Structures are given as structure tokens and as C-alpha cells.
């Protein structure tokens, strides 16, 4: 049963965070894989919403873009983009937003805009998209990102999407409605925010990963839970369903 990749472990762990019946605002890539896996397994009534306005979509293959025809064809209905941002996200009708990014810091702030200085960037990233308002208006956000020192930094170069800012109650005091990032799922473990300081610590470690490995891939001095858990291994059932999904997807996008 140890025959799975780190990405598979991450995706299945992320999928398990999505409860049945949740209304979920889904980003492309890792979040999309996790949400659809959840829908195909323990959360058949999860409602997936993509920012293209596709409501309760049930794609048979993972979309390459956020607005693939597959999403529209399998949706209960399709609304305009202003409507999805106003009537759904801003109105608090989204239970969970799944986000990724290029950088995340110890307080869960996410950067998907630039590496380096904004006006003279080392790397220009795609930018905000729907992320800032997902991060502030979804009831909670779940973050899925591959662990690396470049990605997990002490302070992000640019706050595209607000986490807990400098920690403590700063987010709350600004009047942001959504509760903020509840969890970061990576290919090495699961990070959670400290209830007081809001600094993310390692709550659970994936099987066959060492604490040192996680620390080496984290750009701040990562605190470890007193009772560090080990993430359950993915089941054969979940692995099978995920691999089928990825295979169907690869086939569909090759043509």
C-alpha cells in the first residue's frame, strides 16, 4: 500500500478535508483534483463552483482551464461571472475556498503576483484572479501547495490573498468576513494555524516523511505539534479513483 506518489498523498489528504454537502469554490490544478476526488468518493453531494460561473459542476475529466466546456456541460446551471462573485462568494454562500499559490508565509498570506519587487519583478506570476476575494469571503479556505523552501517563506513578497497578516487577531480586526486559511495541505504534511498567534505549525506528517525533511523545506522556523500525528495512508479505493481520473484527464487533453 506504500505505492503512491507524494502528489497523490497530497491530493487525497486534501480531498478528505472536504465534507459532503459543502459548497466549494474551486481553483484550477491541485484544488480541482482534490475537490473532484472528494466528489467521486465520500462527498457525492459536495457542490463544486468554478469562477467561470459553473454551479454544481460534475466534470468527468479535470478541466485544463477554469472555463472548459466540460464544466459548463456537466453543471446544474451556469451564471455570469459578476453573479458568481457577488451573489455567491461575496454573499457568504461558499463554505470553503480551495487555494494554491506560488508563496505562502507562516501566517497563511498567499502570493500569486510577483517574486521580488512589484515594479521590477524577478518573476511575474499570473496575478490575483479570484483569489483575494476567495481568501476573504469564503467561510474558510483550504490551501494545497507543494512544500519547498521557495514556496513556504517567512514573509511573502506580495500579499495577493490575505491570510492572518501579521498574526493574532489582525485579520478579524480588519472586519474580514471569512475565517481565513483553516489548513495547508502539502506533499509532506498538514499545517494548522495556532489558535492564538495564527502561526502555522506542523499538525500531521505524511507516512515516510521526517520532521527534518519538512523543516528543511520550510522557510520559517516551523513549530511542531506536541502530539504530532501521522496522516493516514491513502486507501486503495481512493488511489484507484484518483488514478482513473488523472488517466481520463490526460487522455482528454492530449487530443
Amino acid at each position: 500500500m506504500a505505492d503512491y506518489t507524494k502528489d497523490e498523498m497530497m491530493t487525497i489528504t486534501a480531498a478528505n478535508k472536504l465534507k459532503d454537502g459543502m459548497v466549494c469554490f474551486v481553483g484550477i490544478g491541485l484544488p480541482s483534483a482534490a475537490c473532484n476526488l472528494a466528489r467521486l468518493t465520500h462527498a457525492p453531494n459536495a457542490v463544486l463552483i468554478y469562477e467561470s460561473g459553473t454551479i454544481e459542476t460534475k466534470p468527468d475529466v479535470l478541466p485544463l482551464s477554469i472555463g472548459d466546456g466540460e464544466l459548463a456541460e456537466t453543471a446544474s446551471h451556469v451564471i455570469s461571472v459578476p453573479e458568481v462573485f457577488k451573489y455567491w462568494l461575496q454573499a457568504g454562500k461558499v463554505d470553503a475556498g480551495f487555494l494554491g499559490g506560488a508563496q505562502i508565509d507562516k501566517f497563511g498570506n498567499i502570493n500569486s503576483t510577483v517574486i521580488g519587487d512589484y515594479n521590477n519583478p524577478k518573476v511575474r506570476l499570473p496575478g490575483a484572479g479570484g483569489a483575494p476575494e476567495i481568501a476573504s469571503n469564503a467561510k474558510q479556505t483550504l490551501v494545497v501547495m507543494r512544500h519547498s523552501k521557495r514556496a513556504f517563506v517567512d514573509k511573502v513578497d506580495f500579499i495577493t490573498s490575505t491570510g492572518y497578516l501579521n498574526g493574532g487577531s489582525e485579520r478579524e480586526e480588519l472586519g474580514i468576513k471569512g475565517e481565513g486559511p483553516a489548513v495547508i495541505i502539502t506533499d509532506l504534511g498538514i499545517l494548522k494555524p495556532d489558535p492564538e498567534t495564527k502561526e502555522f505549525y506542523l499538525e500531521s506528517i505524511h507516512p515516510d516523511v521526517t520532521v527534518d525533511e519538512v523543516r528543511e523545506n520550510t522557510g520559517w522556523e516551523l513549530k511542531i505539534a506536541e502530539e504530532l500525528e501521522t496522516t493516514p495512508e491513502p486507501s486503495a479505493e481512493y488511489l484507484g479513483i484518483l488514478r482513473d481520473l488523472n488517466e481520463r484527464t490526460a487522455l482528454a487533453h492530449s487530443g
Partner: protein
Amino acid sequence: MSDKIIPLEKAIADHIQDRDEVALEGFTHLIPFAAGHEIIRQQKKDLTLIRMTPDLIYDQMIGMGMAKKLVFSWGGNPGVGSLHRLRDSIENGFPHTIEIEEHSHADISSAYVAGASGLPFTVLRGYTGTDLAKQNPEYVKWIECPFTGEKLAATPAFTPNVTVIHAQQADRKGNVKLWGIIGVQKEAAMAAKKIIVTVEEIVDSFEDGDVNATIIPHWLVTAISEVPGGSKPSYAMGYYKRNNEFYKQWDEISQDRDRFHEWMDTYVTKVENFNEHLQKLEVNNG
């Protein structure tokens, strides 16, 4: 037949001027590639290009030097990675440095709604705590709800000189109908001073039944051109699928300046029109 139904060459020549603020909208679906190519062929200059997701079409226009400024909210190749021509302009000033005005999706979609609604600004619950707001104090301001005291973001309405969209159908009177992922097209069109539309086909009249379908009525439309396949490699629901493979290929084509220019020469600037572009692509890529 409405006299607004004219060839795309004429629609672009007559209604887009150098230095215009132009929005080519379509959220993944119905991206007006044919119109974008025609703008490139006609060498329109110093455009302010507005689009939530610049996508390949603005990567091409920026790479060919059409843009003075880009107004956008997510500038990547969806599901693939970077827009290399956009990055080359911002990071290395090639072919020249474009000005960047950057928003979030929620903001731009709301700014189009404000423009369509004849209001000078829009209110949204967003941007709080972000560096985007700090970076752009001239267009993210904070206002207080006069009833609750809550602080909310206010941003200016978008009112492009011209909005260009691609739709599935127009009827002979010039009404335009689109369906599927409808994005912000209606709002971007209603917000603009002029509306140029390319369509998959002109039909005698729309099928009956759906009185609430998304329609831009004929008297608001400035020009309509029939361009079958006009949103390829994006897609038109009911007509053809998205060419995901091409979106992946673009990553390679656009990474190298020479290869990019060669491709643009072969497939865009040295072809007569979009139909020839599609034929050439098909021949060369089987």
C-alpha cells in the same frame, strides 16, 4: 439584413482607433481570437487592453507591440503556466515595457457592472489587507457604508471605448445571442461606447422558447461579422471544443522571441484573414 453586418476587416478598421481602450472579453469560452488577429494585422497602436484573463490573444497582441497598457486580473496560460510574451514585456521590456493596471476578478467583473449600470464606481467587499490595494491607491479607495459604518472597497467603473466579443449567433436584424459560460460579456458590452461582435453564424431568427437568453439587442451593436471558428483555439459551446493541445503548444512557441515572431508571421500577419489562419494551422499541424 442589417447594415451593421459587415466584414471583420471593415469593423476593426472603422471602429478601433489607435490609443483606444479596448476590451476583448470571453471567460475561457468564446474568446474573440479572430478580432484580435485582425487588430494585429491592421497594426493598431498604443491600445489600452482590458481583459480579466489576457490569455493567448493578449499575449500575441502584447508580443506584437499593440499595447501601451494592460488592465487585467489573471495573466496566465490557464492550466499551463505563464504568458511568456506578457512576462517578457514586464520583466525585460521586450518589445517594450507596457504599463500594468492590476485588479482582482471580483473587482473587474464588478467594475464592468458599474460601467453597464451608468455608475462611476462600484463597491465590493474585497482587497482588505492585500498589497494589491496598497499598490494601487488611485483605484482602490475605501468608503464607509452610510448605514452600518462598514468599510468597503470602492473601485472605478470600466467604460471601454470598444468592447469586442465573440458569440454563437446573430440574427439578420443584428441581435446577438450567446450561451454557456457567459462570463462578463454582457456587462463589458453594455459598459462600452461601441460594441463589435464576431459570431459563428448569422441565422434567420433565433429558435423560439427561451425568452430570457442572453442577448445584446441590435440597436446597441456597432458592427457584427460572421467568422466561423472565430474563437479558436478557445471554444464555442454547441460549435467546437477548446483546443487544449494548442494552449500547451503555445507555451513553447511563445517562450522564444524568434519562434514567436515566425509563428505570428506565418499564421497571423501574412494571412489574409482568420479563415486562412485556420486552414494553414490545419494543414501544418494535421
